[in-house]
């Protein structure tokens, strides 16, 4: 097939994929609400920053006055390439319904289509706000041509980086296909790296803020001159224009030449990925995987869980969780809440480190107890409801089993981590106090989570951090964290003051503690009862 035809087909596929994405974003009310909340949050931030951008445009005299322009110009292609690579790994490495598309058009058209759609999505999410900022800056500068030149400079760069990012992502996917073990390891490594990045970025931000980092030296070291010259071409025809440099023109030529080359590489990689062996679901896989997927004997719940149906249910959830850990990918959301904690740990003195880590351990256990099994109970159980709801086992047993599974997972963490930090200087009394409070909070969090999870069930599988699974609603997860987080912190802080002798027993304190316990127990129990009611009255409507 000719290149022209493939480009035409590719653009048609890109348009279709983009339309599907837009319809997907707006297909459900909750997604629209989520988008509106995002718009409200980031839109207002953007709106408030526009006057400063306008003033910057009015006052700018040369490109060199733009803070860190060279560093940003170097970082932009790297970030765009990485973004395309990650998006390929997560989402666009394959086209949906490839049996249709690949028997209809050339793989090159599919690659063009996927990349086109991705560029359109990136333009929608990032391009619009960037365009608003650029337009405001342009208005301040009084040079309308800046918008046009920026487009002319940025679009080839975005195309080139996306194509090469795609090729890199597909190459990684091919590697994963050959070595599936590496993929599993990298997922764990990736999670740890993400957590480390969040924590380190906090320290980096602090050092940047207090001037400890030699920013100018760092910028001079990391800046790649030709890229800076190239992006400075955007200012041609404005008062900020630099003289043309040979490096800028050479960079432009390289970008233009590398894009089709990247497309060739990406097409070859993608064809190799799409058309080489993959044991289809309906056929037999390898003997090794069949062996790994088997298990000898019947379902035997260990003591002491074996005595009750709730224990059996809990053990069943734990066993399934171990065999299919991908269902817990939503737990990675915790990483994004580690930022403030990271700052605290970084800034804490050696004496404070032990208690902070002890409290963090109790908090982690609480999070796991609630978030692991509790945030989408109805969605998780629905495929089995025709069986579960028609057995003699009462709905309360099913819910109780789920709560118990969460506690069994979270409580050991909440108890053990504080005790371990005795080695880091936490007093034994504090460690025991944190551990006890942590275990109690695990019970409260697990009971609370099943209620809010049952209130807003999610049934559809979706791709989340590389795993296709039924993931709890992000809104539910956020609500859980915003309720359980502060509740746990209050309990732990009170415990800390209590065990260090900073709290005098007064009627006011007793009233406060009583109110706290009442709210914690009341909300958790009420939530638990609500979940039971949802199970009892569930219908397939």
């Amino acid at each position: 097939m000719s290149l022209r035809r493939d480009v035409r087909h590719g653009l048609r596929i890109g348009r279709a994929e983009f339309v599907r994405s837009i319809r997907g974003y707006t297909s459900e009310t909750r997604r629209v609400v989520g988008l509106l909340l995002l718009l409200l949050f980031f839109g207002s931030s953007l709106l408030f920053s526009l006057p400063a951008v306008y003033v910057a445009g009015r006052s700018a005299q040369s490109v060199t006055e733009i803070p860190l322009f060279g560093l940003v110009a170097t970082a932009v292609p790297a970030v765009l390439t990485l973004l395309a690579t990650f998006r390929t790994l997560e989402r666009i490495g394959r086209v949906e319904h490839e049996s249709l598309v690949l028997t209809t058009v050339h793989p090159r058209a599919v690659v063009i289509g996927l990349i086109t759609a991705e560029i359109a999505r990136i333009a929608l999410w990032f391009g619009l706000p960037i365009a608003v900022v650029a337009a405001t800056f342009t208005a301040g500068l009084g040079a309308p041509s800046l918008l046009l030149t920026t487009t002319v400079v940025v679009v080839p760069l975005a195309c080139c980086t996306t194509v090469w990012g795609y090729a890199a992502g597909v190459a990684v996917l091919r590697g994963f296909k050959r070595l599936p073990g590496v993929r599993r390891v990298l997922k764990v490594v990736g999670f740890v790296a993400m957590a480390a990045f969040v924590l380190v970025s906090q320290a980096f931000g602090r050092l940047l803020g207090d001037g400890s980092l030699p920013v100018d030296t760092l910028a001079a070291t990391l800046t790649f001159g030709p890229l800076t010259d190239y992006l400075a071409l955007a200012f041609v025809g404005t008062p900020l224009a630099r003289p043309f440099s040979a490096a800028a023109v050479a960079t432009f030529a390289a970008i233009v030449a590398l894009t089709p080359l990247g497309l060739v590489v990406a097409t070859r990689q993608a064809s190799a990925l799409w058309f080489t062996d993959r044991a289809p679901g309906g056929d037999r896989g390898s003997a090794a995987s069949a062996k790994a997927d088997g298990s000898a004997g019947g379902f035997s719940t260990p003591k002491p869980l074996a005595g009750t149906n709730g224990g059996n249910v809990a053990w069943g959830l734990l066993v399934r969780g171990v065999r299919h850990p991908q269902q817990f990918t939503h737990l990675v959301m915790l990483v994004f809440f580690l930022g403030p904690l990271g700052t605290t740990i970084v800034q804490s003195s050696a004496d404070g480190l032990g208690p902070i880590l002890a409290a963090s351990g109790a908090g982690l256990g609480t999070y796991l107890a609630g978030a692991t099994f509790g945030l989408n109970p109805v969605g998780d159980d629905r495929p089995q409801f025709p069986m579960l709801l028609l057995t003699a086992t009462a709905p309360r047993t099913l819910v109780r089993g789920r709560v118990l599974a969460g506690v069994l997972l979270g409580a050991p963490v909440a108890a053990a981590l504080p005790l371990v930090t005795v080695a880091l200087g936490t007093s034994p009394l504090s460690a025991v106090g944190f551990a006890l409070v942590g275990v109690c909070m695990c019970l409260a969090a697990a009971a609370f989570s099943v209620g809010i999870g049952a209130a807003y069930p999610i049934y559809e599988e979706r791709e989340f951090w590389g795993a296709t699974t039924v993931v709890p609603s992000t809104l539910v997860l956020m609500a859980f964290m915003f309720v359980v987080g502060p509740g746990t912190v209050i309990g732990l802080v009170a415990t800390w003051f209590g065990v260090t002798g900073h709290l005098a027993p007064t009627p006011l304190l007793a009233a406060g503690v009583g109110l706290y316990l009442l709210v914690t127990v009341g909300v958790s129990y009420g939530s638990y009862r609500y979940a039971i009611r949802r199970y009892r009255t569930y219908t397939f409507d």
Partner: protein
Amino acid sequence: MPSTNADAAVEATDLRKAYGSEVALDGVSLSIPSGTVYGFLGPNGAGKTTTMRILTGLSQPTSGSVRICGLDVSDRGKLAPHVGYLPETPPLYDEFSAREQLDYVADLRDIPSETAEARIDDLLDTFGLVGDANKRIGTYSKGMKQKTAFIQSVLHDPDVLFLDEPTSGLDPRAARQIRTSIGDVADSGATVFLSTHILPVVEAVADEVGVLFDGRVVAEGTPDEVKSRAQTGGEGSLEDAFLAVTSDEPQLSGATDE
């Protein structure tokens, strides 16, 4: 083993497919003349889907070769206009309406818009989908999805149509509609490669039958020939023959290794 036939619509020679040490296909050879409805039978896990993916160029055999309408399947650009493929899960986008989906595929097939519009209208009418053509596919029943996917697979008048369980899970009316359409496609001169477990469908429409078992074609011929080779007795059904040839004990009086 069938003899090589240059005029065959589907010509597969000694196909072998292995996943590591597990052999999914072991020396499968097929020669299907144009205009034939070929019923491809086999128990779960026999390798039927693997065979279909290889025949459509979506997967590569470990060894062996495939030609469709005289074209090597590795030349996908030339192959695409000649084949239609309806996999077991209908390849439809929930976010599109049936009309959008079919327009989209017509565009990708380079069918001129006037021709495509007329053909889509005609097929939607034939399958009773005109009233629902503008509804999103995500709201469709299984039968409606299957009918839409069937239309999609025949939109470009392919020379060879591969169907993987096209009537599975459909109500009798929808199943009959698909079955009738398979006959219509064959009457127009196209070849239909039909993989299914629903043996009455095969008995009703197939000119030839191949039975895949343990990665090998263990019986092939007209339905009557397969019944007689399976020693099921003169009154035996295709189901009896299928059970006989896919048991572990040798009961054949003649098979493809003859």
